[in-house]
């Protein structure tokens, strides 16, 4: 660790992993509720479990992004963090607010929670992924602004690199687009229209800048390839990501009451969204092949390569599967969407955060890389989680194809619930794949506690 203040990243990473475990546990519960409908009912209804599953994902990824930024920025700017104390204070505020929100979801009926937290002052609740009570949303904005202030002030006093600039633009974009979660017009078309400005413009817009910057940073560190080469490719990738991703928002505007031209714009531009992900894969492999050093942290290199491949498959290929308007006419909101959502989030964002943690955590703990034994275990966890996610995606895709056929294409279409019964075999298989994923996650946790001979302190 070159700068003392980078140490603030550590609690962020620990919290991220802790919440990740929670997310997967709720995923397993929901997976079971798909096939045993009254499992844990009425204590934990499906809609609450789903909300906790998705909200935890978003919150732990945010912890991961913030931790990564706190680690990356001092080294890139070659100066200590503007205020490590502020970073730690915001960590606790965010963690406690997040935990209270989850407790609120679990302990109270959602309507009661809305009433207690001032939803009648400004109605923002009740929308998928943006279910957080008003005070939590305000809290998120305060934490995000404090975080951005801290990072921006550090950047202003230090060296400006392309990686840190791309990262900061991504992080500011993240905060700015979140503001649309406060805009909840009564017109349903407008409501959905701007809802996607948070959801889509996060994951297929500004988050891709964060992803690109974090991956580029780790690749520079583990391969020793010239910064200019890596930064040049970073620019190409983020330009492609922004052009295709921003206009590609149109692929959510096919059937919500927006003008018809969105069907063309959405189809054409989002069909090209796999390009930046493909470029990212080629980029990652190319840089590792051209490496000028053998970094002792093999696990981090594996995660970095895995991010490229899985992001391309999950976000790129599985996104393309149902992005064209004529296809989406049938597949909209089916299990095909769930298949894409799972692999895309895992491949792009879960994996890039785990890549970063894999690279940075050993250094934060005073060594360049973990022991051989620890790394072997971590690589096992990589393969278990990744292969399990491939199977989760394949089973959900199969479920989705069958669902679309029975429910929407067939001459005698079945009802939603009758169709769900017909595809339950795939839900069972998905659940077992989920158990394997969880096993991988447990191994990942264990890898942090495996001792053994480690290499020097610098990387």
């Amino acid at each position: 660790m070159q700068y003392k203040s980078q140490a603030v990243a550590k609690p962020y990473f620990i919290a991220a992993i802790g919440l990740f475990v929670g997310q997967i546990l709720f995923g397993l519960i929901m997976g079971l509720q798909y096939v045993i409908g009254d499992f844990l009912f009425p204590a934990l209804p499906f809609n609450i479990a789903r909300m906790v599953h998705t909200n935890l994902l978003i919150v732990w990824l945010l912890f991961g992004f913030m931790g990564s930024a706190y680690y990356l920025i001092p080294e890139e700017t070659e100066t200590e963090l503007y205020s490590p104390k502020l970073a730690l204070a915001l960590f606790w505020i965010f963690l406690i607010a997040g935990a209270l929100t989850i407790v609120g979801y679990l302990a109270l009926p959602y309507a009661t929670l809305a009433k207690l937290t001032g939803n009648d002052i400004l109605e923002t609740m009740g929308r998928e992924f943006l279910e957080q009570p008003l005070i939590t949303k305000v809290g998120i904005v305060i934490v995000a602004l404090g975080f951005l202030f801290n990072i921006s002030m550090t950047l202003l006093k230090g060296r400006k690199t392309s990686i840190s600039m791309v990262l900061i633009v991504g992080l500011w974009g993240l905060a700015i687009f979140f503001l649309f979660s406060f805009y909840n017009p009564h017109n349903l078309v407008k409501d959905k229209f701007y809802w996607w400005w948070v959801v889509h413009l996060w994951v297929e817009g500004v988050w891709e800048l964060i992803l690109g910057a974090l991956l580029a940073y780790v690749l520079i560190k583990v391969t020793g390839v010239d910064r200019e080469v890596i930064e040049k490719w970073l620019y190409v990738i983020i330009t492609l990501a922004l052009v295709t991703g921003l206009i590609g928002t149109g692929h959510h505007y096919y059937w919500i009451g927006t003008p018809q031209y969105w069907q063309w714009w959405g189809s054409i531009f989002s069909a090209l969204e796999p390009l930046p992900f493909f470029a990212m894969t080629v980029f990652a492999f190319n840089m590792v092949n051209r490496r000028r050093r053998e970094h002792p942290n093999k696990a981090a290199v594996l995660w970095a390569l895995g991010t490229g491949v899985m992001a391309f498959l999950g976000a790129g290929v599985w996104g393309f599967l149902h992005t064209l308007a004529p296809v989406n006419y049938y597949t909209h909101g089916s299990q095909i969407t769930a298949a894409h959502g799972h692999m895309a989030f895992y491949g792009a964002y879960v994996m890039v955060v785990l890549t970063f943690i894999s690279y940075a955590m050993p250094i934060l703990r005073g060594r360049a890389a973990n022991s051989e034994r620890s790394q072997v275990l971590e690589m096992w966890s990589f393969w278990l989680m990744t292969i399990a996610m491939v199977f989760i995606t394949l089973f959900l895709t199969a479920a989705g194809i069958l669902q679309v056929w029975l429910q929407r294409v067939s001459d005698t279409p079945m009802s939603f619930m009758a169709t769900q019964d017909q595809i339950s075999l795939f839900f069972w298989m998905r659940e077992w794949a989920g158990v394997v994923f969880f096993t991988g996650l447990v191994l990942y946790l264990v890898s942090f506690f495996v001792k053994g001979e480690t290499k020097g302190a610098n990387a």
Partner: protein
Amino acid sequence: MENTRNTATLAAAPGPRLAGDLAIWFFILAELLAFGVFFAAYAFTRAKNLELFNVEQQALNRGAGVINTMLLLTASYFVVRAVQAAERAASAQSARWLLAAICCGLGFIGVKLTEYSAAFAHGVSLSSSPFHMFYLSLTFFHFMHVILGLVILLALWNGARKGRYHAGDMNGMETGAAYWHMVDLVWLILFPLVYVIN
């Protein structure tokens, strides 16, 4: 070590040299793919609405299209002269050629804006017909590329004025020039496709 060897081999190898940075070529190919998909979508929709497309196409201002074609081709010629001048280390000349190209590009923007304002006055919008949707989308997408191209030419002009480019270092100049030629090339397909072929 291996890397150094590869570079050395590459440098020594005879044969054609890639003008401009490899990265810009990836970008150009991605851009061409995007326009290609858009053109294919146009052709597909046109085949299904032949009569409508033929009638509405007649209403376009072909004169403006021809002027813009001339402007872009001339700009491309000026960019070629700028590259040649930079290779001879004639920086001042190179900068002048680039300035001329920028003027042509600005002319394109001006003509296009006039054309758009006339079209909007006639009630042309993205939702007024499938043909208008494609006409506006394709030309506007290209319009944005002309603007980006102009920003790049401005950067090259600035670099040329400072004498940054010479036979030993043409990477930046060739990279920017390649992008501008792509913008020109796309128009050479777009113009006949949308304005002329009936």
